């Protein structure tokens, strides 16, 4: 089968470079957001995925943005940038400036562009993604819907109602669990019983679990999952063990520094450094810095959205 042959091949160097560059962009975008918050230039909140970039980039590299649907959560910047590459739209949205992808109404965790949607209540996104998968199946578009959740979201009952429906109705739905070991501040041992994969397997949903921060390994796992959904039209539950270096939100981190330091040894950017040469890494880093500096400068200069008269 074509899909399997593709998985077996080593990715082209252009592809590897693109994966690394996209992770670098996401990393620096979010570090920039945290700096802007610290400088008092941002209002509201943000949830960064620093440390988890390989998931967003690896999985989304297997999707087709012109037809596939992605539904993300509160921690959505990495998914959004991997899917749309829309730095300006996201930065301005988070900063509440004209040119924000949702006009400043959604902010950090409520994004919509093309086939990308995100929402801020954990678990609520899974049935919506299932409904979108149903819509695409009925249209015969061949598209699949991918919904990203975290291990914290596995506490929500609606996730299991939706897995049941996705399995019963044979929906082209890919559920990606980014298992970073924490639900906000609460470690998994205080909030997750039993076996994570078994939860999906109980509904007859195909599943696999991968403890890796290597974007190429994530990509290979995602390719298999996407191929499964695409060829069988049935759901898949992909668990990716990962770690978030940054706090849940902005400053709310009470984890042991030693724990974070140990996990930093598996930083997806460090792991992926070998897939591009040093000169290329510097080139990518410079390009990312230039792009972000320009985006920040333009966003700071952009006006704030005009208020609208009440209609009801």
């Amino acid at each position, binding site marked *: 089968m074509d899909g399997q042959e593709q998985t077996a091949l080593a990715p082209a160097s252009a592809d590897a470079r693109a994966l690394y560059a996209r992770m670098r962009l996401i990393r620096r975008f979010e570090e920039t957001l945290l700096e802007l918050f610290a400088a008092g230039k941002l209002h509201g909140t943000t949830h960064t995925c620093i440390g988890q970039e390989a998931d967003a980039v690896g999985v989304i590299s297997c999707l087709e943005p012109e037809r596939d*649907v992605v539904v993300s959560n509160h921690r959505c910047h990495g998914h959004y940038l991997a899917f749309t590459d829309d730095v300006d739209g996201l930065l301005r949205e988070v900063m509440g400036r004209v040119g924000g*992808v*949702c*006009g400043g*109404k*959604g902010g950090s965790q*409520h994004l*919509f562009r093309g086939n990308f*949607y995100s*929402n*801020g*209540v954990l678990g*609520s*996104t*899974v*049935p*919506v*993604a*299932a*409904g*979108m*998968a*149903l*819509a*695409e199946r*009925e*249209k015969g578009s061949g598209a699949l*819907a991918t919904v990203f959740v975290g291990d914290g979201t596995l506490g929500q*009952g*609606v996730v299991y*109602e*939706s897995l*049941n*429906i996705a399995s*019963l*109705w044979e929906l082209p739905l890919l559920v990606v669990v980014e298992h970073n070991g924490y639900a906000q501040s609460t470690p998994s041992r205080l909030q997750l019983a039993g076996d994570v994969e078994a939860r999906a397997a109980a509904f007859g949903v195909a599943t696999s679990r991968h403890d890796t921060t290597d974007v190429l390994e994530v990509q290979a796992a995602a390719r298999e999952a996407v191929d499964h959904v695409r060829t069988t039209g049935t759901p898949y539950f992909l668990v990716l063990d990962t770690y978030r270096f940054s706090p849940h939100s902005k400053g709310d981190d009470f984890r042991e520094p030693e724990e974070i330091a140990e996990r930093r040894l598996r930083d997806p950017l460090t792991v992926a450094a070998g897939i591009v040469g040093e000169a290329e890494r510097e080139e990518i880093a410079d390009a990312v810095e230039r792009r972000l500096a320009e985006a920040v400068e333009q966003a700071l200069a952009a006006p704030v959205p005009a208020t609208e008269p009440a209609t*009801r």
Partner: protein
Amino acid sequence: MSMRCGQALNAALHEIFERDERVYLIGEDLLDPYGGAFKISQGLSTRWPDRVLTTPVSEASIFGVSAGLALRGYRPILEVMFGDFVTLGLDQVVNGIAKFRAMFDERVTVPLVVRTPMGGRRGYGPTHSQSLEKLLVGVPGITVVAPSECHDVGALLAEAVDDDEPVFFIENKLMYGRPNRRPEGGRVDELACVEGEGRYPALTFSGNGFGRAEATLVTYGGMLPVALDAATQLILEHEVFTEVVALSRLLPLDLEPVLDSLGRTGMLVTVEEGTLTGGVGAEIAARVQAEAWSDLNGPVVRVAARDGIVPSARSLEDDALPGVEDVIAAVTALERVGG
């Protein structure tokens, strides 16, 4: 003999399915021969087996699934077996369905209709008899429609399906079995009746040809026959004329017909089957006093269910829910206040 409201809704669903292949019906126990717990969906699964999706008992999920379908180009109708179960889907309503259009900067619509029966007087008890419209009326971003037995219930349902906004379509359980009493020659029985224009019109009833009257009773849904019986008894037994306004759209609140009638009466009584506190009547009262203070000759009075449960035993249920006598008592008390 006119069609019963339940039959009219069923016939409308068949027409809607014929007309628009983007319409899907989603809910529990929908398949023939069962055809939904109240039989309103009968026949649809036989004619359109691919567009009627019978679901597990998973309200929280099926609200979301319906939203996903609506966001991606379909026009789903979600049947929620009892209105009481809407609470299970409220996260999807409050944090998704009602917000998507605005928070995604007007670039998506959620053309979803949630059909659900509300109301008591069938002895179903505290969790199967409530009128929870007030929970929905406090959610900006949705439309709440609650037709009465004198509205063109089938046409209203078709309008809801054509609406680009998410619509809650509240059906009263008793209404299903009652005739769809449409105005004929500007009358329903002995009362004159005027129907508003446009989508989701209100109906206004008068016992004296819209001459000067003592009070306006504003109501909706399953309380219309109660209000009309009260209005008729007030004429026959108390020589008091009232107007009755039956709203079909509760959100955004359709205040115009209420203000119009109030101009002829000067007194307002709100009549609803839900519990009193924080109810639809409270919202109407607040808006009317702000808009038409100078037209009011007395306080706005609310007739509603007692704050508490809807008990199962018939005697207890009758006592908890507002009836004809409660409406009459409210109007005659106003009479004494306003002179």
